Every structure is written in structure tokens, then in C-alpha cells.
């Protein structure tokens, strides 16, 4: 994605700027503990970017800070230093850096980190984001969509499924605030979400649908855990949604033009 100033780092910086409302409100409510977590995540992520720069000549990216921020906000609590470092290292190395850095990866490194931590250390309690942090996700999404770095169709699609569930009488309301935060921080990653227009709609609908499904049938799960699991599956399916969209386009073109 290089169009004038629109190179990879511009997109990463825009994304970081869009996350600022969430980050500031979260720091305000989290206090010193939150700040220390963020600093730790930044250091670990930055170190790996540095190592890959030295070893493979991959330019470091501000996307590392985006990952660190999302992980610091959403990671399970009471993990201890070592496990958190292990999780962030696994996510940012295996999901992003070995692919050649941000923009070439398939999955969002923060999503993989959080799924890894949740799966590997199930005893650690998931955080319950404060309500103002979730409200701050709305301006974050607006900035992201207006700046063109977050796919608006994914957000609209993700809103459709819970709306349909509410209209049908199901009640996934408990999981929805955390799902909105995860939607902005993880699912709307411009790299890991679908790239075609119908694919983005489907990507959002799939995420929202999975959140509703998990909220209704997964007993004893924390809202953030539900949302992270749905985000991981939605971004695993994103390439398939794109592929199917392109296949349908090709079929229609062939039918129209012979």
C-alpha cells in the first residue's frame, strides 16, 4: 500500500492515533498498573522488532505499538511477568514478524497473543474493561473509519448480527460491550480483516454472529474471552471470505463476457 504518503507506516500511525481515545481513557482508569503493563508490552514488542531488524533487515514498525496497546488492554490479569512476555513474544513473532513484518501477516498478532494466553493459562481471569473505555471505542472507530484505515463495513456487519439476535429475542447483551472494544482493537485491523467489500460485510457478520453464539452457549466465559475467540475465528476465515468473493466475481464476469 504505497500511494504518496500512504505507506505502511502512515497507516500504522493513523491506527495508533485512532486508538488514542481508548488508550487515554484506559490509562486514566487503570492507573499505574495499566501504565506498567503497557510499558512492558511496548518493550517486549519493540525488542522483537529490533531483533528482526538486525537479523532479517525488516524495518521496525509502529504497528508493534498498536499490538502492544491492544494486548495491554485486553490480556488476562494476574499472569505474572514471564507468561505475559512469553505470550507477547509468541504473538508478535509467530503471527507477524516471521511473515516479513506488519502488512504481510495473515492474522493480527494481538489476537494470536490473547488467544494463546487464554488457551495456555485458563486460570488467569480476563479483564473487565471499564464502561468509559468501551465508550471511547466509538470515537476510536470513527477516527479510524474517517481516516480510511479501519474497514467501516466490518463494523456495520458486526453490528448486524447482535441486532438480529436482539430482534429475535435472544439476549447476548452481557458480551456486547467487550465485543465492541475487541471489534475496534482487533477485528478492524486493516491487514487481518477481509479486503473485498462483500468479504468485509461477511467478516463483520461472522464476528458478530460468533459473539452471539458464544455468549448464548458458552457458560462461564468472560466477555473479553468470548470476543477474542470470535475475533480469532473471524480473521482465520477472512481469507476464505475474500477468495469466495473473488471466485463469484470471476464467475459472473465470465458469464457476462464469455
Amino acid at each position, binding site marked *: 500500500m504505497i500511494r504518496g504518503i500512504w505507506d505502511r507506516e502512515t497507516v500504522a500511525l493513523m491506527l495508533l492515533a485512532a486508538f488514542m481515545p481508548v488508550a487515554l481513557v484506559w490509562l486514566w482508569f487503570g492507573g499505574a498498573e495499566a501504565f506498567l503493563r503497557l510499558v512492558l508490552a511496548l518493550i517486549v514488542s519493540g525488542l522483537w522488532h529490533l531483533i528482526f531488524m538486525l537479523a532479517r533487515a525488516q524495518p521496525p514498525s509502529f504497528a508493534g505499538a498498536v499490538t502492544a496497546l491492544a494486548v495491554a488492554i485486553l490480556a488476562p490479569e494476574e499472569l505474572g511477568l514471564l507468561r505475559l512476555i512469553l505470550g507477547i513474544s509468541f504473538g508478535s513473532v509467530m503471527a507477524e514478524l516471521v*511473515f*516479513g513484518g506488519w502488512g*504481510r501477516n495473515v492474522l493480527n498478532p494481538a489476537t494470536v497473543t490473547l488467544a494463546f494466553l487464554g488457551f495456555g493459562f485458563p486460570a488467569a481471569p480476563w479483564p473487565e474493561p471499564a464502561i468509559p473505555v468501551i465508550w471511547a471505542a466509538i470515537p476510536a472507530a470513527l477516527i479510524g473509519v474517517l481516516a480510511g484505515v479501519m474497514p467501516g463495513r466490518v463494523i456495520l456487519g458486526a453490528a448486524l448480527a447482535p441486532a438480529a439476535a436482539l430482534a429475535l429475542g435472544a439476549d447476548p447483551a452481557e458480551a456486547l460491550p467487550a465485543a465492541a472494544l475487541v471489534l475496534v482493537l482487533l477485528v478492524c485491523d486493516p491487514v487481518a480483516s477481509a479486503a473485498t467489500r462483500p468479504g468485509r460485510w461477511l467478516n463483520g457478520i461472522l464476528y458478530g454472529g460468533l459473539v452471539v453464539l458464544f455468549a448464548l452457549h458458552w457458560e462461564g466465559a468472560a466477555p473479553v474471552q468470548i470476543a477474542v*475467540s*470470535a475475533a*480469532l475465528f473471524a480473521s*482465520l476465515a477472512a481469507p476464505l471470505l475474500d477468495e469466495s468473493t473473488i471466485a463469484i466475481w470471476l464467475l459472473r464476469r465470465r458469464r457476462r463476457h464469455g
Partner: protein
Amino acid sequence: MNDLAGLFLRATFVENMPLTLFLGLCTFLALSRRTETAIGLGVAMIGVMGVTVPLNQIVHSALLAPGAWAWAGLPDLDLSYLSLVAFIGVIAATVQLLEMLLERFFPAIHAAFGVFLPLLTVQCAILAGSLFMVERSYTLTQSAVFGLGSGTGFALAVIMLAAVRRRLAYADLPAGLRGLGITFVLTGMMALGFAAFAQMVAP
């Protein structure tokens, strides 16, 4: 009816053959390089598992299960030690039949499969489907649903992986991870993704 739908979803997502039970990984990894072959493999898996599991259920309950020969005056005869051989025979015959049908009516798909279709004879996920059927004593209907569900889960997983691997065209991987290496990493991440379903339908 509801039970059967639950069994289908369970076989598709919760007990996904390659991603939760790690069965059939060889074809899963080898044939996910291109989307077309992945779709072909997926359809073949649905077909073969949908046919062989109920067929093996009939074979098992009519011939091999303890007491199956009671009508002939042999109530103590227990032929279940033959089940492995019998199941593989049924699977081999089904795959052979499928290959002949494909060659006759869909030569393009047959050509796309190449050598992999005969290899489905020794695919562990297909045999595992029949062995699970015995272990859990499914009825004929249940085995048909279970076979179709397992095949669908395999198809979904392999097509998803093929689509993800298509995106790797943009990646710049270290030499040691290219090809199978990164596929194993991605398979692990897909297994993480499917693990959520396992916790959802807790028994």
C-alpha cells in the same frame, strides 16, 4: 432431530478431525497448497466419510459385533477383532468406486486429484470416523450424520487453510519456515481458533 443437528455441529466444529483431533494431517497439509485441490479434497472427504461410516456401521452391527451371529446359533461368536480389516476393506472399495465414477463422469476433477484420491484409502481421519462410530455405538442414522459432519469439518478446515496459504504469496518468510513450516504454525493457530467451539459445547 435436534440431537442429530447437534451431533452434526459437534462433528464439524468441536471434534474437527484435523484441527482438534489432529487426524488426517498428511493430506490436510499436502493438499491445502491450492484452493481448487482443497475444495476437491473437501468434497471427496464429505463423500467418502458420508458413505463409509454408515456402511461400516452396517457391517459392524450385522457381522462383527458380539452376538451378531446369534440367529445362526452362534451367540458367543465375537468377530470384532476383524473390524479394522473389514473397515479398511470397505473404505478401499468406496474410494475405488468413487475414483471410477469420477473418471467416467467428471474427468476434470479426477485429473485434479491425481495420485491423492487412492491415498484417501489410508487416510487416518476416514478410518477414525468408523472407529469412533464403533466406540460410541452410533445407530445407522447417527453414523450417517456423524460421517457427513466430520467430512464437512475436514472440508471447511482444509479450504480455510488453503485460502490462508494463498495470502502467504505476500509474505516474506525466513527460508526455514517456507512451505510446510509456516503451514504447521498456521494449523496451530487454526486449532486455537477451533478450540473455542470445544469449550462452548461442554458436555
